[in-house]
């Protein structure tokens, strides 16, 4: 026994080195496995990326009378094929007349979503106000905040006149730090 134990001492010192090595290998293998499986999973969950830019036709420029606001609805091209009617989107289009130097019609295209919490505002041409049914946010016809809790005016969509038709950039769901201007 004595001889065995004295002979085992150097052996006993070697074993931890080997064990330690395999512990490190096992730990490293676990970390690599977790990363290899985890990175694509996390990428799948968060990596939706910037939406593409689509232009949507609102109608003929001539169909928008000056100084009037029209509710235009369209199927949002940012949709998935399986979105159903939830991809239906409305915007308020106002023809601001031809005051600008180019002589071209100036438009104002406003998202329906209240800047407070996103509820759909309604347009009242009689008083020239937008009113929100949720917490009572009110906006003037130019989209600026009139009263109530909204921290800013309505979100402006990006528009262009192509030939004789008015087009807008398909709007994503607008929020305070992700307004519709950013995609321009």
């Amino acid at each position, binding site marked *: 026994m004595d001889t065995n134990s004295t002979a085992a001492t150097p052996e006993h010192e070697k074993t931890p080195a080997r064990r330690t090595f395999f512990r490190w290998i096992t730990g490293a293998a676990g970390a690599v496995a977790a990363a290899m499986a985890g990175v694509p999973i996390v990428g799948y969950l968060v990596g939706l990326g910037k939406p593409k830019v689509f232009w949507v036709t609102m109608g003929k420029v001539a169909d928008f009378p000056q100084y009037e606001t029209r509710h235009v609805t369209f199927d949002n091209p*940012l949709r998935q094929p399986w979105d159903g009617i939830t991809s239906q989107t*409305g915007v308020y289009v106002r023809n601001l007349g031809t005051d600008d130097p180019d002589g071209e019609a100036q438009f104002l295209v406003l998202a329906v979503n209240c800047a407070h919490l996103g509820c759909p505002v309604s347009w009242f041409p009689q008083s020239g106000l937008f009113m929100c049914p949720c917490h009572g946010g009110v906006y003037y016809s130019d989209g600026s905040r009139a009263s109530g809790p909204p921290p800013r005016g309505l979100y402006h969509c990006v528009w262009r006149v192509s030939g004789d038709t008015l087009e807008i950039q398909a709007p994503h*769901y607008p929020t305070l*730090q992700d307004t519709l201007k950013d995609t321009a």
Partner: protein
Amino acid sequence: MIGWLKSIGRWIDVRIGFSETLLPMMRHPIPRAVDGPMGWWYVFGSASLTFLMLQIVTGIGLSLVYVPSAEEAYDTLLYLDYQHPFGWFLRALHYYAGSGMVVMVLVHMTQVFIHGAYKYPRELTWLVGVGLFACTLGMFFSGQILRWDPDAYWGLAVAGSMAGRVPGIGPQVVELLLGGPIIGAGSLSRFYALHVFVIPGALLTLVGLHLWLVLKCGISAPPVAGEPVNPATYDAAYHEELKRGVPFLGDAIMKDICFSALAVIVVVCVAAIMGPKGPSGPPDPIVSGANPRPEWPFLWIFALLALSPPSIETFIMLVLPVIVIVALMLVPLVSNRGERAPSKRPVAVLLVIVVYTALGVLTYQGVVAPWSPVMDAWTGDPVPVNLVKRSTPRELQGALVFQYKNCRNCHALDGIGGRRGPDLTTIGTRLTRNKMIDQVSNGTPGGGNMPAFGKQMTPDEMAMVVDFMVSLRPERQPPAGAPRDLVASGEQ
């Protein structure tokens, strides 16, 4: 036959060890006082668990038919409501048992708080319970989204707008929440995964932990005034008490079963009478007249966000929920010793009263929602005839302007109309003509509650609507600001 079954039972038991492990657990002794009338205070936790099991059964049932697709979800809900045998009942039961679960969890938490049952050694039990409470509310919100109607769609819009306020990473959080650039299929699938996999997974894990802790730490004895909890001596004293205890699996569990049975009967009856909740209509974002409302457990937040100043709203949306959860978690860490009896803990009792009063008032306000404009009041609610009986033509014209400029959406006449602004039935006695012109032209200074109508109407319209408002006062009462002697002569 019975002997044969018994031998099968023994064969399984030898291998699974039920009578060695689980049975003693179920028979664990509990304090004798719980066996008495005080035991009725201990039934709310098991009732919550009963409702959870009912939710699992009805939820699995609904998932057999429901299709979590933005295109088809609404149709499958209608199919459940009108065609599938008992589909309407399962939907109704799932809603009302879920509501019952929220109620039972709240009552259970309140009872534990009032009786100081969260004190040593049951701090962790309470902490896990707070997690269960959060999961229950999460289930309620995500479940509302699956009822793919306008309230669901706009509920997502509100959640997205709140998430959009997170400093720095708002847009990323919104996208993570909505599952795409617009509210739609991606959003529904996300909330389906949350409602069916993620939150239930967390919920069941926490339930297991909660029950284990209840077994491990034992049920607290009913509080006795003058017997404070001292962590140094509690365990020995509790151990002594259990020697005189009664087994849980015996008369004690009868109260739980009895109460749970009553609770289920009530919920089944309510579900059968009330029927399924919604869907209120297809989730069409462009349909006008949408009037989104949150589910009842969240009405108080809806009210809080309408009534609080805009400057602290982001704080209320993002920080207050965290504060509430952290505050609940801190309860047993701040006070895990001392008196347990409510009679010796006036602050705790007062806290419960104040919190429930506040929640009750806010929820009531959330139901009434006086801050929401009545969108069709300007055409739907005529000016009460008695207010214009003696009007001059100009005042009558002013009444027309008042309706036409949508004033009625926020201002009631004779109690009918919007309630965001004051009722104007007797405004003529309160504001002078000049004050009215100032108020209508400029609105509330700084863009408060009333928009400025200065540019929204012509000077003539303004003059007429003010004429009308000056005339809004009881008969024989002079307008505001009339000289005192005129008032005196007017009254004679």
